[in-house]
């Protein structure tokens, strides 16, 4: 990979300042960024490490909201959210492999918004709030397409707040080589209704499957969505699966998630 300047600020303010430089890029756990840089798909001139930024790591529960620092690793979320939000904990425990989970962070995943990443599905289905150094952004407004988010160039995901649903579950059909989601579905049942978020399937990135939500609001059972499948119109077709295959999986995985939700 090409060389770069490296800086390791200790405050969010200094990190944001460093990111305002031309060619600067934030570095979280680096589990996507390093492989991308090795392939020269990313060539940042300056890397701003967020590793030492204070106050960005940890899981805390207040009332019915679980707040996770942006620099918290998947492994820590898997452990620390297990009692309070088991659906989210299980999702974190299924990302990549153990070594990847020890480095990769929730903030990095959400900032990157890979169309096959797991966390975007949890954030969107939960109705989470993404907190940056500048503002709070509702998940419904945050995800703006494949690798696109509402973040501007000097914004850092400092925390993510998840309203804890009554029931939830995440089902991932893994792409056998990468272990990313070929399709992943997160179902969250809250007092305000059911939310279903789909990752891995669409060219537009993570999205809510509103037809299924409507059906599940009437009857929260697999039977209510028995004959439904996703809309293949704008779904991804690649070596691993056609748009029609993914659309089929969306229905199957949603039913499985409803059955498994707890």
């Amino acid at each position, binding site marked *: 990979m090409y*060389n770069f300047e490296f800086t390791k600020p200790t405050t969010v303010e200094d990190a944001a300042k460093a990111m305002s430089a031309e060619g600067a890029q934030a570095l979280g756990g680096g589990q996507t960024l*390093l492989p991308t840089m090795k392939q020269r798909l990313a060539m940042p001139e300056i890397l701003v*490490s967020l590793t030492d930024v204070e106050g960005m790591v940890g899981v805390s529960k207040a009332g019915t909201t679980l707040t996770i620092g942006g620099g918290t690793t998947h*492994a820590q979320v898997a452990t620390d959210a297990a009692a309070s939000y088991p659906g989210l904990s299980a999702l974190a425990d299924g990302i990549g492999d153990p070594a990847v989970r*020890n*480095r990769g962070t929730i903030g990095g995943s959400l900032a990157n918004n890979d169309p096959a990443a797991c966390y975007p599905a949890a954030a969107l289905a939960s109705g989470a709030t993404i907190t940056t150094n500048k503002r709070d952004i509702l998940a419904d407004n945050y995800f703006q397409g494949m690798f696109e988010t509402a973040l501007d160039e000097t914004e850092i995901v400092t925390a993510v707040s998840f309203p804890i649903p009554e029931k939830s579950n995440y089902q991932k059909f893994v792409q056998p080589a990468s272990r990313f989601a070929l399709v992943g579905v997160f179902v969250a049942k809250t007092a305000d209704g059911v939310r279903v978020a789909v990752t891995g399937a669409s060219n537009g990135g993570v999205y809510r499957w509103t037809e299924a939500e409507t059906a599940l609001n009437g009857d929260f059972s697999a039977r209510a969505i028995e004959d439904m499948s996703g809309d293949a119109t704008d779904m991804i077709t690649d070596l691993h699966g056609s748009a029609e295959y993914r659309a089929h999986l969306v229905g199957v995985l949603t039913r499985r998630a409803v059955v498994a939700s707890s």
Partner: protein
Amino acid sequence: MPTISMNVNGTSVSAEVENRTVLAAALRENLGMTGTHIGCDTSQCGACVVHVNGKAVKSCTIFAVEADGAEVSTIEGQADADGSLNVIQQAFQDHHGLQCGFCTPGMIMTAAALLEENPKPTEAEIRDHLEGNICRCTGYQGIVNAIMAASGQNSAIAAE
């Protein structure tokens, strides 16, 4: 070039690295510790797994400058001071946990991290934990048997 300091296997070391140098390269090329292997260099094979501050990580996917100040454990630090193999290493030898040996450093370091947090894993837990470690010659059964044995459990082996 920046100079980094680390504690590697209980010894304080420093190295002059480029910002882009990954930890695996710093260990191998700057410090001459070639026990850590780079198999794929794309974060998939796990041959480069070392422990950084007690956590197993893929050392090809962390910059050396990010490990500045860290405690690092590598395969070189696993054997006892007199050179005799530790329990996991001995179990790999006893239960055919390796053939060519290329993946073994990563397998041992991953197994050590697993047994640290879960001293009596089930066979399924071992297989799940090895998801990020690829072996392309001996197969996984011997590796799983070795880790079972290293944790003082012999049921899987007895069943053969």
